[in-house]
């Protein structure tokens, strides 16, 4: 028997991942066909299979941001799997996969953002909002946000909203506006190319020394390490703490068994294999995924991911709404107006408020 699995792996990741699959194949006797695609294409594949009533995929990896949309295309998973998931992942991470007491998705790889800083230029990285603002004022153009019109701008801004006690579904609350006003103050001091930066372009700018501080995902440290820049020049640190605490955004890919999967039981078996402690530690060691923390003996990894490890207790998931894309798109436009066009916060978020007002979101939204 063979199962077909669609995952959003980079080519370099897929090579390592295939070795892990071989172990499962030898244990179970089931062959795994690994199809690597982008998250967007996998979502389209899932919907195609769901609408056609048949299809080849037994397991799919879905971007955490669109789990609400993807839910209609997957089957529920057995409750017995929940105990395993809870033992491996932090609460906000496994809760995202549950809707209405039913488990739909299990985390495949979880990640969250931390602050990446140039330790030579910034010997003492900012630890709170005041220090971050001081840094931005003292070094204009050296702090960057991923401000392109895509999900990245939401990932950078939302932790500030949460740290002020705000919420993406309460865009006009006092706490949310406090955070947005703080971000608006940073706007003119940001690196001028923040308006176009995305994960890779801001990372390249950091590597070139054009930017000294930005927020990014764990893969950034691996990139800088491979360039010989980390830990010698670049390190990670926690996101600066806000007036009501600390927060970072949860990202990553989740696995679900599509409706009409040809071999759902074999797919479930594969899921259980992936969730074992041994495989999770292997994923951490060989791919740098932070599902489980690096082992104590791995001092280099712990040094590189220091900021990320420190942020693990503060991860928070985005709102699980049926049309998260719609919410995100409005936030992106609002943040772009706020940061780069000097539009006052209350005016910039009005379209978000209108959208949220009209939203009938699921009652079981996980609260972290």
């Amino acid at each position, binding site marked *: 028997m063979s199962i077909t699995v669609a995952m959003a792996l980079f080519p370099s990741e897929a090579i390592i991942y295939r070795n892990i699959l071989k172990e499962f194949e030898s244990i179970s006797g089931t062959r795994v066909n690994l199809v690597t695609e982008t998250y967007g294409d996998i979502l389209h594949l899932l919907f195609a299979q769901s609408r056609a009533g048949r299809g080849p995929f037994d397991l799919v990896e879905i971007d955490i941001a669109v789990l609400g949309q993807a839910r209609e295309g997957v089957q529920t998973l057995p409750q017995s799997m929940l105990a395993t998931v809870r033992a491996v992942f932090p609460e906000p991470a496994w809760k995202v996969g549950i809707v209405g007491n039913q488990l739909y998705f299990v985390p495949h790889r979880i990640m969250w953002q931390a602050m990446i800083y140039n330790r030579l230029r910034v010997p003492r990285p900012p630890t709170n909002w005041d220090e971050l603002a001081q840094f931005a004022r003292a070094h204009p153009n050296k702090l960057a946000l991923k401000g*392109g019109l895509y999900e990245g701008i939401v990932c950078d801004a939302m932790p500030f909203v949460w740290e002020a006690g705000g919420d993406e579904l309460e865009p006009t609350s006092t706490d949310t506006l406090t955070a947005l006003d703080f971000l608006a103050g940073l706007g003119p001091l940001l690196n001028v*190319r923040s308006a176009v930066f995305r994960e890779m372009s801001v990372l390249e700018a950091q590597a070139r020394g054009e930017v000294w501080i930005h927020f990014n995902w764990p893969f950034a440290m691996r990139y800088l390490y491979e360039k010989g820049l980390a830990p010698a020049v670049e390190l990670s640190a926690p996101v600066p703490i806000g007036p009501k605490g600390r927060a970072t955004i949860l990202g990553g890919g989740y696995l679900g068994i599509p409706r009409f999967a040809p071999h759902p039981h074999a797919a479930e078996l594969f899921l259980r294999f992936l969730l074992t402690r041994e495989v999770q530690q292997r994923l951490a060691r060989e791919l740098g995924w932070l599902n489980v923390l690096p082992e104590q003996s791995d001092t280099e990894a712990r040094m590189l991911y220091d900021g990320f490890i420190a942020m693990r207790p503060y991860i928070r998931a985005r709102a699980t709404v049926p049309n998260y894309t719609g919410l995100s798109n409005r936030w992106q436009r609002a943040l772009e107006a706020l940061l780069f066009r000097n539009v006052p916060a209350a005016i910039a978020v009005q379209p978000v408020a209108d959208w949220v007002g009209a939203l009938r979101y699921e009652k079981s939204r996980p609260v972290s």
Partner: protein
Amino acid sequence: MRRAGRFLRLSCLGLPLGFLAITLILPLLSGVILSFQADGFSLENYRFVLGDSLFRRSVYNTLILAAASLVVEFVWGLIFALLLSSRRRASFVTEVSVLMPLLIPEIVFLSVARYILLPRGYLNGALAAVGLPAVGWLDPRSALCLLSVALVDAWRVTPMVTLLLLDGLQGIPAELYEAALLDGAGSFAQSRYVTLPLLKPALYGALVLRGVDALRIFSTVLVLAGPEGAPVMSTYAYQLWGDAMEEHRAMAASVLLATMIGTLGAVVIAFRARTRASGGGALEGLSG
């Protein structure tokens, strides 16, 4: 025998038409239908796109970039074509230098251009070496960013314009220059009364080809400035489709771009037909 010939002719016509229908016409129709879908069949997607300030900026940038790029590439293209066709034959190095951008894969060419123009790129490095301050060649939404994109785009396609014009230049009989010389025409008069009038067909042909292409500008903007740095109509549609996952609105934006290009093409064809009917004129040589 005659029936077999007729069958062959129909097959020759039918196969490409069928191929076109499957690969072009059906997706196009499907796209147009998609653009009208938003909670039913409506104009909502068009209303959103036309009311979006980013779209309006994209239209403006598209027109500015197309115009700027065309002016630069035609001036450079004509100069290079004249240089390459001159009797004192251009050196091999000159020919290679002029035509090189055509030989390099687009993504490589644009990535190199990006590394040249980045804030810590080679160009600012050169400026720093002579004590000059860095320039924000690609600063988002700046006029300089638009100019940089236009110049790089012109640099990328100038070899194509050069080749088109060179072909036109080489079609001008040498006897005409000799006759002009005998009549006492200098270099300027030769260019004015021999070269330019006879180059018109090639110039207009190249202008129509590149004009349509310039409105579709995409990769140059995407690689150099990103969809937000110098938004144009094609990157606007791409951003809606890829990042915002709003396929129907992206399709509406694409239909508007296609309509703009189609309208321009129709105007050119109509103008050409009119000038032909009135006994020649500006576009008389387009078909030649």
